[in-house]
């Protein structure tokens, strides 16, 4: 048998104060990112804001400053320019308020380049134009989609586990989602539909690790009715630690090959997945289980405290 980890006995639960602080910071950043997103001040994809984005391919390199000049000369006043990592490609984004009608931009933008650089060959790689009404609808749909899937997961967990485990799992899932928002926000990546897709995928997937840990905790709680909860939780996590890591590792391997080799279109998407996978395993160990333990201990205290009452009366 090859094992990366032999029998371990880390005190995961004892570190909960540290992990709670770290996760609180991550979550606050994540929530801040969401607020920024809702306000529209974050780096939003045109899927949500409406507007136009055109990716152009040139046969020669075009310096970004020259490109800027060319667009200005072509009569396009407001735009954003981004360099695409591979090839001589440029991404031109026009805001929603831009005067160009939908369907026209793919003519006007390349024309501006051919006018300024007559010798250069311009091809339109892709055009995405989203009218304001579609952008608003997508934003609304997305919020509903996220809400419904979260609700679905919560309902399922509530049905499968008892209340305390349910809370632990939901908090861990929310934590993973917030962490993805935080990572995207901090790296300045664009919030678009693919990102939301990644978030929902991870919301469904990250539960695997949590469930593995929870199942073991419950099993051990039934076996050992008298032992201290703290000890049971710790040993349960340690027992399943290697499988938590390996299940995440295999998915991580698949996601990293998408990240490295999958090309520009899904580059950011796979980045989000990678973050989600890593955070997912962290949260199942450091967030989900400690929360359940805290709730269990609280209810135990209550059970011990109740008999005292009648005496007083």
């Amino acid at each position, binding site marked *: *048998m*090859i094992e990366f980890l032999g029998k371990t006995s880390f005190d995961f639960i004892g570190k909960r104060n540290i992990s709670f602080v770290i996760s609180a910071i991550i979550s606050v950043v994540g929530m801040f990112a969401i607020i920024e997103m809702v306000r529209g001040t974050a780096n939003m994809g045109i899927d949500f804001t409406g507007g136009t984005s055109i990716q152009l*391919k040139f046969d020669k390199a075009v310096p970004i400053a020259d490109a800027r000049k060319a667009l200005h000369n072509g009569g396009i006043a407001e735009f954003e320019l981004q360099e695409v990592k591979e090839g001589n490609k440029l991404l031109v984004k026009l805001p929603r308020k831009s005067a160009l*009608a*939908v*369907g026209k931009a*793919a*003519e006007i933008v390349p024309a501006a380049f051919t006018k300024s650089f007559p010798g250069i060959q311009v091809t*339109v*790689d*892709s*055009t*995405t*134009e*989203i*009218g304001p009404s*579609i952008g608003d609808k997508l934003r609304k*749909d*997305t919020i509903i*989609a996220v809400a*419904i*899937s979260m609700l*679905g997961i919560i309902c*399922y*967990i509530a049905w499968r586990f008892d209340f305390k485990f349910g809370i632990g799992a939901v908090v861990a899932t929310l934590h993973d989602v917030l962490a993805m928002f935080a990572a995207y926000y901090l790296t300045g990546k664009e919030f678009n*539909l*693919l990102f939301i*897709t990644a978030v*929902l*995928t991870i*919301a*469904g*997937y990250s*539960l*695997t690790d949590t*469930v*593995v840990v929870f199942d073991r905790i419950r*099993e051990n709680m039934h076996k050992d009715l008298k032992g201290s909860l703290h000890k049971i939780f710790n040993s349960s996590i340690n*027992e*399943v630690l*290697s*499988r938590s890591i*390996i299940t995440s*590792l*295999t*998915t*991580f*391997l*698949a*996601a*990293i*090959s*998408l990240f*490295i*080799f*999958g*090309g520009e*279109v*899904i580059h950011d*998407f796979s980045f989000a997945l990678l973050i989600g996978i890593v955070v997912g395993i962290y949260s199942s160990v450091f967030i989900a289980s400690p929360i359940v333990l805290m709730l269990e201990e609280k209810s135990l205290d209550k059970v011990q405290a109740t008999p005292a009452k009648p005496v007083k009366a």
Partner: protein
Amino acid sequence: MPKGAGWRIALIIAFVVLSGIYLVPTLVPKLPDWWKGMLPKDKIHLGLDLQGGTHLVLEVDTDKAVDGTLDLVATDLEDVLNDKNLRFKRISRTAGNKTTIVLYEKDTSDAVQKILKDKYRDYEIISSSEEGGLFGVSLRMKEKDIQDRKDKAVAQALETIRNRIDQFGVSEPVIARQGINQIVVQLPGIKDPQRAIALIGRTARLEFKMVKEGVSPTGGAIPEDAEVLYEKHTDPDTGAINEIPLIVHKKALITGDLLTDAQVRIDSQFNQPYVAIEFNSLGARLFDQITAANVNKRFAIVLDNTVYSAPVIRERISGGSAQISGNFTEKTASDLAIVLRAGALPAPVKIIQNVTVGASLGKDSIDKGLMAGGIGVLLVICFMAFYYKLSGMVANLGMALNILYLMGAMSALGATLTLPGIAAIVLLVGMSVDSNVIIFERIREELRLGKYPKSALETGYDKAFLTIMDSHVTALITAAVLFQFGTGPVKGFAVSLSLGIIINLFTSLMGTKVIFDMFLYKGTVKKMSI
């Protein structure tokens, strides 16, 4: 053989064969004829992001369709009242879905109301008093009729757009209605998306209007029954657009719905393309009458409120054919002929979404997606073989079955593969061995406790079952939501993901287990390669 293994193996093999059959059309470039007769012949559909193409969402301005109907009522009424010698100040469409007639006298107002009651039963008749002691009578469209008109307008627009696309020549276009007033158009593999977009989005309302002589278009008041339209001239050398204003009568004498045909012809004298049009019998009669009555006057050929040409009528034209000339290139002339043949849209459409992916980017995406997928699979296979030895290879076999089944199922269901869909498959490769990892780790634990491989295997599968179910169900919940709300590439992702999750459940709980059972069923095997 262990009990119950027979039918499980049979099921696995049956699915393999079935998937294989469905995948043949995708993998084999040329199918033999006997195959096409009875076996599936559809390839896996590639999304527009992979094969390149244009996805458009159009919104029909249905209010304009209602306005159009009311305008027709106004023109019609004008003729009726003129016929009956009833004096009126004006007839026009007014706010609130009404056509209003303003009359001078109470008596005429009563007479008009009588006619209206008879002729326009579907309309609500409202009388009002207008400024300056005049009398107003309005026809108001009922709410139900308005909705009906709007609904029909969208259906008509869809048909017209379908006609235009068919004539333009796009293979396997998708044209479908979405919601109340939207139309989705997908044009896979289109070479010249801009031209197609222009063709689809054009209203193409053709009108013949008389030019109002004796009024200067550049200054002075324009009579109430006239309007200013512009004739556009593009200088072929500089590309500068020159606009010439023209005053024309508001009323159109002939409209595009009286056409039967439109064809591109080349003018032999100037080698210039023009569009030759043919009228139907009513149109031909009208054209004959109008040209006879207006010799030596100018009339304007107006398309979507732009004057194409304004020739002088030299002589009476009978026979019902005419020509539209302007500054055409062969392409613009042929596009104009297409829209004239396919007919005008009942109301203007607005393009509210346009996602166009060039063929080269699509090809690039396929290549990179496959490359990433291949490497991902390889990494996972190596890892599993290294860490779990022979058992790992069994898991790898399960994963291979997974991919085969998934591709087969997508092909059978006619699902669309998109780039995020490929990402979902790659992700599933990682997830599909997860279930086995959970099972194997459990087996290892049982083995450590000193159990025999057979019973360790049974316990491993039993105890891991619920955990695996849980993780699959939650993943399926989010995949289903993505499917419901996603469009295009995201939907493709959801399709691949949800199919993959269901298939994965099957292969991990049945597929790989049967292989272990085969080896371990006697219970005498002492060592397990795990």
